[in-house]
């Protein structure tokens, strides 16, 4: 055996050892909870291309649980919030869910963040009768899976319909163009609702362009839209893509009001340094407004900035509220029994950062929808509308 082979063997042995250590470390970490703790499971994409939203949501939830625990927990018990990464993938979400259920013995699930993994997990949460509250999954189907599945964000049709109505009635638009992400369920869902409502209200859709996952170049689509001279542009996507569409729209000379959904919340975090006016003239539907002077909202924003050194976005606010609501439901139920928590959630009425929330018979939230206008580099409330379902 020469030196090289000897080296290879040593390496192989040491790598096997590394594997063993990792397995041990991984196992020791997933020790089961003690009885003075309540385990709440969390699912979120912490790595991968949608990790941005997962991070913001879990940050919000983590902050809430920290506050709750500091204030004495739930009926004297501390909350243990175990978040597992699912990379935005349904398959990973399922194994992570099973792990939360079997290894961590969660009493309730906070998650998932995006719609497809949420749908996959909801099906199982219903089978296992585990109360599930998703802060941010907007696909209407999620809560229809079963009685123990709830959400606190709007469903896709809420936002699309409301914005179409606002554009037609308040902005006086006669024509609208749409640019949407063809591979994103949220974007597709909002587009569908907006188009249907707009046509019902007599708005003409002059162009409905799409782009794909990870696209950064929208100039061709925007130039095409610009040729059709619409009054407004509906662009339902998340803020990090929206900002690019916004700046490229200006670049090709498309200077019309841009409308969007709650994904736009956070747009001021990504505008150019020293130029927050960049996003002026944007309208979007949202749950809350950073300019809200209520103590609850301002405390949340201050605490969030303090903890994470960045401004909260709608995901963080929803994660924060969802965490408080789950804790409240467990407190009201005074038990960690699934049925008790579910029925406590059904009858809950909670005053949160994202409005006063109660659930309808599907488990969807009943709360007003805000139209936010970006003006002078700040979010301002342009209107408050009721959801019609």
């Amino acid at each position: 055996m020469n030196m090289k082979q000897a080296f290879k063997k040593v390496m192989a042995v040491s790598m096997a050892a590394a594997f063993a250590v990792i397995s041990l470390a991984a196992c020791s970490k997933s020790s089961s909870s003690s009885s003075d703790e309540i385990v709440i499971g969390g699912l979120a994409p912490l790595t991968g291309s949608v990790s941005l939203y997962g991070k913001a949501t879990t940050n919000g939830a983590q902050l809430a649980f920290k506050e709750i625990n500091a204030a004495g927990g739930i009926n004297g018990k501390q909350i243990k919030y175990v978040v597992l990464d699912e990379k935005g993938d349904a398959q990973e979400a399922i194994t992570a869910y099973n792990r939360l259920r079997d290894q961590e013995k969660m009493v309730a699930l906070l998650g998932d963040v995006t719609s497809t993994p949420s749908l996959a997990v909801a099906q199982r949460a219903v089978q296992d009768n585990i109360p599930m509250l998703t802060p941010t999954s907007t696909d209407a189907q999620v809560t229809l899976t079963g009685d123990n599945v709830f959400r606190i964000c709007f469903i896709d049709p809420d936002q699309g319909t409301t914005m179409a109505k606002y554009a037609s009635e308040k902005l006086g638009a006669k024509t609208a163009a749409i640019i949407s992400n063809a591979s994103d369920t949220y974007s597709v869902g909002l587009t569908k609702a907006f188009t249907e409502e707009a046509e019902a209200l007599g708005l003409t859709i002059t162009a409905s362009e799409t782009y794909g996952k990870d696209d950064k170049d929208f100039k061709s689509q925007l130039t095409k839209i610009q040729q059709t001279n619409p009054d407004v542009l509906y662009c339902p996507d998340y803020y990090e893509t929206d900002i690019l569409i916004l700046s490229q729209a200006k670049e090709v000379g498309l200077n019309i009001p841009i409308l969007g959904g709650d994904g736009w919340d956070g747009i001021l975090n990504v505008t150019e340094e020293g130029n927050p006016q960049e996003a002026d003239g944007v309208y979007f539907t949202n749950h809350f407004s950073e300019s809200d002077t209520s103590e609850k909202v301002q405390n949340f924003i201050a605490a969030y900035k303090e903890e994470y050194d960045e401004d909260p976005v709608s995901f963080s606010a929803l994660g924060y509220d969802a965490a408080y609501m789950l804790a409240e439901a467990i407190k009201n139920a005074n038990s960690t029994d699934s049925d008790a928590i579910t029925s406590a959630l059904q009858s809950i009425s909670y005053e949160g950062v994202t409005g006063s929330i109660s659930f309808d018979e599907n488990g969807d939230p009943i709360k007003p929808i805000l139209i936010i206008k970006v003006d002078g580099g700040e979010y301002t409330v342009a209107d408050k509308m009721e959801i019609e379902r």
Partner: protein
Amino acid sequence: MTYFITQFINGLQIGAIYALIALGYTMVYGIIKLINFAHGDLMMVGAYIAFFALSNWGLPIYLAAAVSMVGTAILGVVIDRIAYKPLRDASRLSALITAIAVSLLLQNACMLLFSSSPRRFPTVTANLPTISIGNSTVNVIVFISIALAIALMIILNLFVNKTRIGKAMLAVSEDMRAAQLMGINVDFIVSLTFAIGSALAAFAAVLYLFSYPQIEPYMGAMPGIKAFIAAVLGGIGIIPGAMVGGFLLGIIESMAKAYIPSAFSQVTDAVVFLVLILVLLIKPSGLMGKPEKVKV
């Protein structure tokens, strides 16, 4: 007509970026026959370096670009030495899997270091005029980007064809063993190739940021795969092929978006792949490729 011109310019601009990234793919492939899947992510790292050079150290844009090119070139060489070199004699598929793992590594390392929140690249176009074409406008930066990309490609071509080292690179890509026997330092040439390819990716990143001023850890994936397609379109391993392929891909993409009716706009993504398939079927070695020698 003005609509066509505008769309054509849009295509040229994104095409220039594809071409620069495709050059890195093609050069590395030409030398060691490795599809360097981490190449798009090198571009991402280049973008981060340029960003920090510009915002944190306050360097002017041309110096920031230079710093980014040097930094990315060093990273490219280091990656080759650590991850790819031990696999030079192994099956090329093993090297391919390693490249995929390196891509994952770069993405996740950057996510841990810089978080997944996107960062805004400072606008350099603010004081530049725009040109009106019909009723749409095009920023001058677009023309500057295209011109810079073409200039760089000409320099690269001169370097490869006229200098001793450049010719050595050609020799190594022709036949690595023979080149070695002729006294060419193959390891040096391979490192140089990685350095140049990575520097070009960093330069592409800067041009990219002029128009799409946002940096996040996964930004390299899409341009990476598109540039790879561009390299294959032109004939992988052939330097002029990558340039032609890049521009062609940019224009095809732009035209597809411009002229496919809204109702079918979902399938525009497929157009690029369809063109790729057609080219491969008609001329399997790419537009500028030489037919492959098949030996028994």
